[in-house]
């Protein structure tokens, strides 16, 4: 009995808790991608670098606050700087929309053209971030590191395995819940939110109803930039900030959005957690886990790892391919249009 419980605790510590946090980050990113797709009707490849930009802006203010000695311990100072990062990112997105994307909306460019444009934007963001903060790893986390540490857990529970729950993990999950709840409330309960859904559903009829498309687009960037910054900062707090890793998040984020059905917010969340859990679960070494479950003192010789961590993008990719083969419109996809 103890063996099973210890195995479960082990699994919580190394799979469930990290995957929950990572899934929350992916879900927020995928929500931004899916909203932009629903309203602007293209896949925004600049999303990863938008996250990086938002995180960068937040980090810069965090450092300043840390330097001035402002602190909200035990919470990380970055939370205080987050609104500033969000505002910077919103400003950037609105500016780029005005300078770049608006023109293509006016000429009704094909989605593929907009995709290439977004790749161009991605490289501009990419270099801006590297110019300002450099390409290396940056740490900005402070405050209490753990909500509960593994030794404390062991002491309190008496088990030989412990669950460590990092503050950043807890905050990420909490933040994701708040943001998602707010977003769904906005989309389903407010007039502006409903007008966004209407515009996404039927652009022509939305125009006939007097909905202003430019306002809808501005609201979308506003929300997408907010989501991207929160996702970016949470990822940076949880792991570390390095511009290149944000670019690499593009694949799992898109996989999440597509798995859930591009354009569907609920799908983006489910997709985010699907990808995160698969990635963590398939690359975890189950050696000790099997050892607890197996009778006696036997533990397997190898790591019992299904896939080396070097191949974690392969997980997103394989799930993506499976969904494309079995259900091309995604789990929650509407009609493919």
């Amino acid at each position: 009995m103890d063996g099973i419980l210890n195995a479960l605790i082990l699994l919580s510590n190394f799979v469930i808790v990290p995957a929950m946090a990572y899934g929350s980050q992916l879900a927020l990113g995928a929500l931004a991608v899916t909203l932009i797709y629903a309203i602007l009707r293209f896949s925004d490849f600049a999303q990863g670098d938008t996250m990086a930009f938002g995180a960068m802006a937040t980090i810069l203010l965090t450092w300043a606050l840390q330097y001035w000695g402002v602190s909200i311990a035990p919470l990380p100072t970055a939370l205080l700087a987050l609104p500033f990062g969000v505002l910077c990112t919103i400003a950037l997105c609105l500016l780029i929309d005005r300078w770049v994307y608006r023109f293509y909306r006016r000429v009704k460019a094909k989605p593929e053209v907009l995709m290439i444009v977004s790749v161009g934007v991605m490289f501009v963001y990419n270099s801006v971030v590297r110019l300002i903060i450099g390409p290396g790893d940056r740490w900005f986390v402070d405050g209490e590191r753990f909500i509960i540490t593994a030794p404390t857990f062991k002491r309190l529970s008496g088990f030989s395995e412990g669950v460590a729950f990092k503050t950043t993990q807890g905050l990420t999950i909490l933040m994701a819940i708040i943001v998602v709840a707010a977003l769904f409330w906005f989309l389903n309960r407010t007039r502006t939110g409903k007008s966004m859904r209407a515009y996404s559903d039927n652009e022509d009829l939305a125009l006939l109803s007097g909905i202003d498309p430019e306002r809808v687009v501005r609201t979308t960037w506003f929300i997408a930039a907010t989501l991207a910054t929160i996702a970016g900062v949470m990822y940076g707090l949880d792991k570390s900030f390095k511009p290149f890793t944000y670019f690499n998040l593009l694949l799992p984020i898109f996989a999440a959005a597509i798995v859930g059905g591009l354009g569907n917010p609920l799908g983006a969340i489910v997709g985010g957690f699907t990808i995160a859990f698969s990635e963590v679960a398939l690359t975890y070494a189950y050696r000790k886990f099997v050892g607890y479950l197996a009778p006696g003192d036997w533990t397997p010789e190898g790591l019992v790892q299904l896939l080396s961590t070097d191949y974690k993008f392969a997980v997103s990719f394989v799930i993506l391919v499976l969904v494309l083969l079995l259900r091309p419109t995604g789990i929650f996809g509407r009609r493919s249009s």
Partner: protein
Amino acid sequence: MTMNDSEDYLLGENMTGGYGGPDILNGCTIGARSGEITVVVGPNGSGKSTAMKALFGMLGMREGTVRLGGEDITGLSPQDRVVRGMSLVPQTGNVFTSMTVEENLEMGAFIREGDIADTMGRVFDLFPVLKEKRRQLAGELSGGQRQQVAVGRALMTRPKVLMLDEPTAGVSPIVMTELFEQILYIAGDGIAILMVEQNARQALSIADRGYVLVQGRNRYTDTGPALMMNTEVRRAFLGG
């Protein structure tokens, strides 16, 4: 019967234009009066739907003017025309399928400030079945109910002119009769109704005025019953 254009609340005169290629409208004139039903009929490709688009500002006209309540609105965008009291029910894609009936009506009233419960109540009075199904997604309704949502959405702006592009396309004869009755009722509120119809016979029977278009030009204009009595119109357009 003589036509007095000054009574027309909405009037498109000498409308000429197309979608960039050859002209589809060749100087046609269409008007609609408050509280009356105006029906535009004609063979396929005669420019009926194009004339509706021209009236609503969705087509760049080379010549001609559109007046609303005596004011020239030729240069206004469709959205601006909505604000001035025009409302259009397109033939296809005329409901937000992923939204509930109630949300569809709310979106119809998007340009309005203030309380819309009153207008929504009137729409529910007109289409009682929508009240029952107001929490259902519009995409899950039957064809006839969808048309009702579409008309209801268009009424939410409290328009002075309601334009319907083939409202009975693809619905059953029973639903069609019901829908025409409801349209008569709407006209009774003093709204000018302008509709394009394939089911020319039934539509003309409720029309105060009918236009027969051929190749983008006015061919016959008269009251609905008079057009139905006209032997040429009957032979050529109403199937005998």
